[in-house]
C-alpha cells in the first residue's frame, strides 16, 4: 500500500469537470456544418468544393504562420480557424474566384481575429469581417451567382473560379439570380419549398434551410448552441416583415419567403450564435436576436441591397457589449445589478 502514496496528486476543488473543451465545441460545429457543405458541393459542383477547400486551408495556414512569426504557441489545434474558413466559404457565391477567397480568408483571420488578440478577444465574427471586406472590394464578383444543379457541374468548374489574380474575370454566360435579387429587382417570388430544400441559386452554403436547421438542432441538443438567438432572429424577422407584408402585400414578400431566402438561416444558426461575439445574459440574447432580425428586414426591404444578414449580424456584434452591460442580472443577496460585460 505504501507504494501508492507517491502516485497521489494534489489539486484544489472542484475535482470534477464536465469535460467539454473549446476544441470539442469547435469540432462539433464543423460536424454540424458537414451536411450543409455536402449539399453545397452537390448543388454547385467542383467550383464550390474548390472554394470551400481554399478558404478553410487559407484560414488555418494564415493563423499558423501568424503564430509562428510571433513565436507564439500554435493555436490552430482549437479548430476555430478551420471553422472560420468553412463559414466564410459557405457565405460566398459558388463561382467566386479562388484568389479572392484567399484574400478574404487572410483578412478574416488577421483583421477579424488575430489583431484583437486571437480566439475569444475579437469583437466581430471573423468570417463575416472577411466577407464584408470582399463585398467592399469585389462588389461584382460577390454578386455573380452561378446556376444551381448545372448539368456539367462535376466535370468543369466555372471559369471565374480559376481566374488569375487582378485580371478581369471572364463572365460566365449562365448566371442565376438569387431569389432575393429576383424579388427585389423584378418582383419574382420563389416557391418556399424550393428555398427550404435548397433548390435555388445563392451563396454556397445558404440555400438549404432544412440542412442548416438540422445542424442547428443537433448543436442545440448537445448544448453547444444558444437556441434562443436563432429563434429570436426568426421571430423578429417574421414579425417585422409580417408588418410590411400586411401593409402592402404586393410590394413586400411574405414572412416565410423572408425566413427561408438568402443567408438568413445560415447567419441566424451558425454566425449570430458565435459565442465570442454574442451577449452573455439571458435577456441580452433575446434583445440581440431581435435587433439582428429587425436590421435584416430594414436592410432587405428598405435598403439598396437585396441581402442584409451579414451587415445585420456585424451590427449586432457591435451592440453586444452594450446589450450585455444593460442586461446584467441581480447578484444574490444584493440589490446590485452586475455590469455584465463581454
Amino acid at each position, binding site marked *: *500500500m505504501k*507504494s*501508492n*502514496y507517491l*502516485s*497521489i*496528486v*494534489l*489539486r*484544489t*476543488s*472542484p*475535482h*470534477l*469537470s*464536465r*469535460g*467539454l*473543451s*473549446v*476544441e*470539442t*465545441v469547435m469540432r462539433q460545429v464543423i460536424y454540424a456544418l458537414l451536411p450543409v457543405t455536402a449539399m453545397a458541393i452537390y448543388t454547385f459542383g467542383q467550383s464550390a468544393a474548390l472554394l470551400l477547400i481554399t478558404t478553410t486551408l487559407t484560414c488555418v495556414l494564415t493563423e499558423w504562420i501568424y503564430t509562428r512569426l510571433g513565436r507564439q504557441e500554435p493555436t490552430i489545434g*482549437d479548430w476555430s480557424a478551420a471553422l472560420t474558413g468553412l463559414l466564410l466559404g459557405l457565405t460566398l457565391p459558388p463561382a467566386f474566384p479562388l484568389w479572392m477567397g484567399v484574400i478574404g480568408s487572410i483578412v478574416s483571420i488577421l483583421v477579424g481575429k488575430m489583431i484583437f488578440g*486571437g*480566439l*475569444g*478577444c475579437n469583437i466581430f465574427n471573423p468570417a463575416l469581417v472577411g466577407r464584408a471586406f470582399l463585398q467592399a472590394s469585389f462588389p461584382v464578383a460577390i454578386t455573380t451567382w452561378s446556376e444551381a444543379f448545372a448539368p456539367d457541374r462535376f466535370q468543369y468548374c466555372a471559369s471565374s473560379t480559376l481566374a488569375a489574380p487582378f485580371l478581369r474575370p471572364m463572365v460566365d454566360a449562365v448566371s442565376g439570380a438569387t431569389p432575393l435579387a429576383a424579388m427585389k429587382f423584378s418582383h419574382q417570388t420563389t416557391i418556399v419549398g424550393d428555398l427550404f430544400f435548397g433548390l435555388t441559386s445563392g451563396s454556397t452554403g445558404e440555400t438549404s434551410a432544412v440542412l442548416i436547421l438540422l445542424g442547428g438542432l443537433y448543436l442545440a441538443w448537445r448544448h453547444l448552441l*444558444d437556441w434562443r438567438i436563432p429563434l429570436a432572429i426568426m421571430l423578429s424577422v417574421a414579425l417585422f416583415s409580417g408588418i410590411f407584408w400586411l401593409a402592402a402585400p404586393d410590394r413586400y414578400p411574405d414572412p416565410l419567403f423572408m425566413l427561408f431566402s438568402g443567408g438568413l438561416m445560415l447567419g441566424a444558426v451558425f454566425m449570430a450564435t458565435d*459565442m*465570442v*461575439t*454574442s*451577449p*452573455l*445574459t*439571458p435577456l441580452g440574447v433575446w434583445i440581440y436576436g431581435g435587433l439582428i432580425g429587425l436590421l435584416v428586414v430594414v436592410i432587405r426591404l428598405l435598403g439598396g441591397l437585396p441581402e442584409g444578414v451579414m451587415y445585420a449580424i456585424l451590427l449586432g456584434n457591435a451592440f453586444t457589449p452594450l446589450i450585455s452591460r444593460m442586461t*446584467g*442580472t*441581480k*447578484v*444574490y*443577496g*444584493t440589490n*446590485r445589478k*452586475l*455590469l*455584465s*460585460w*463581454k
Partner: protein
Amino acid sequence: MPELAHLSASKTFSHGIHPEEHKELTSARPVRRLPFAPHYIVLMAQHLGKPALPVVRKGQEVIRGELIARADGFVSVPMHAPVTGVVTEVGRSLDCDGRMVPSITLRPYPGATQEVLAGEPRTLENLSGQEIVAGIQAMGMVGLGGAAFPTHVKLSPPKGKTVNDLIINGCECEPYLTSDHRVMLEQGEAILLGTSLVQKALGAKRAVLAIEDNKPDALAEFSRLVPPGSAITVAAVKTKYPQGAEKMLTRALLHMDIPSGGLPADIGVVVSNVATVGEVGTLLPRGQGLIERVVTVTGHGIDRPGNYLVPLGTPLDFLLEQVGFNGSARQVLFGGPMMGKSVAFLDTPVTKGVSGIVVLAEDEISPPRKTYPCIRCGECVTACPIHLNPSRLGLLARNSRFEEMASSYNLMDCFECGSCAYVCPSNIPLVQLFRLSKGILRERSTKR
C-alpha cells in the same frame, strides 16, 4: 404515485449545475462499523474557532467518551476520547493540509469492551433553550456537513435577531456522498428529536427538512415519520448542485436572500445539517460527547465502498486499508469532489467535518487538459448560483486587479462552489483564481 407528486413540487433556485452523481456506489449500503485502529489521533482543532485545550497527560488511562480536552472560550468545543485506552502523546500531528497542529494520540486497549460509559443521561422535558445550547456545546457538536462550525454558536444568534425558520439540510448535493442519506434512512427518529430540540433552543416557529428529490426513499421515510400537523414539515427540493448551500436553500424554500456579507440569522433563518441534528437527538438525551460520525468512503480507488461509522481520530491510512485501498487510487479527498479538499498525507486522522472520503481512480479524475482563452460562451454565467460573472472575474484575476474584483464584481459573495470551473470549456481554473484573489485581498487588508 406519491413520489411523482414530490418531484413535480420540488423547490429550487436559479442557475446551478448537474454533475454526475455516482451515489449509487454507496447509497444502498447501510452504515457499518470497522475494526478499531492501532492508534487514534484526536486533533484539537477539528472545528472553526479556537482549538480545544487538552485536560489529560501522557500515560493517562481514558474510557471511551471521556472528556480529554475542554473548549477554549465560546467559539470552541471540547473533545472526547474515541476509544478506551491510554494517552500515548499530547503534542502535535499533521492535519490534512500538512500543518502541525495540537493533538492527543491514544492507543486503545485491545481487550476493552469499547462501550461508551461516560455521560450523564438527562430528561428532556424540563430543559430550557439555554440548557440545550450548553448541552450541545458540552457534546463537542459541530456542523457535520463539512464546515465544522460549532453548533452552539449557530444556535446563539446575535442579540436582537429572532429566528423564525429552522431549515434542516438533507440535500447532500455533492456527488458521491451518501452519509446524510443513510443517516436519514436509519436515524429518522433521532433527527426528528434533534430537530425539535434545536427548534426549542432557537425559539423558531417553523422547521422544514429539505431533501433532494433524488432520495425518494428518504422523503417517503419522513412522510411516514412526521405526524400530520407537526411543527416540522418535509420539503422536496430539486436535485441540483449546489442546492445544499445555505444561500440556495433560503431562496428555494423561503424565497429570501441572505444579505451579502450577512448571516442567515439576519433574515430570521438558521440552517443546520441533517446529520448534526441527528447526533443532537441521539447524544443529548444520553449526555454523551461526539466521538464518531458516519463517513461515506467511496470512489473507484477502493474495493469496498460504503458508509462507515468511524471514530474521530481514525488514521486515514488505516481506514483506507480496511476498505480495500487499491493501486488505482490517484486522488484522496476529504468531502465531496466539488468542494472537498485534496489530502496530502494519508496518516492524517478523520475529523468532525469529514462527511466523506472520496478515493478517485485514474478513470474518475479528469486528465490534465489544455487551458484555452475564454471564449465568452457564458456557461459560467449560467452556472453561477450567486449570479456573478465568473468570466469577467477570471480575466481580472489574471491581470491582478483584485480590488476591482471585490469592489465592482462582488468577488466576496462567491462561496466557492466550483460550478464555474466545472462547466468551463476553456478549462480556466476560475474558482481557484477567486480563492487565490480572496486570499491576496485578505492579506493586503491585514497588512494595512
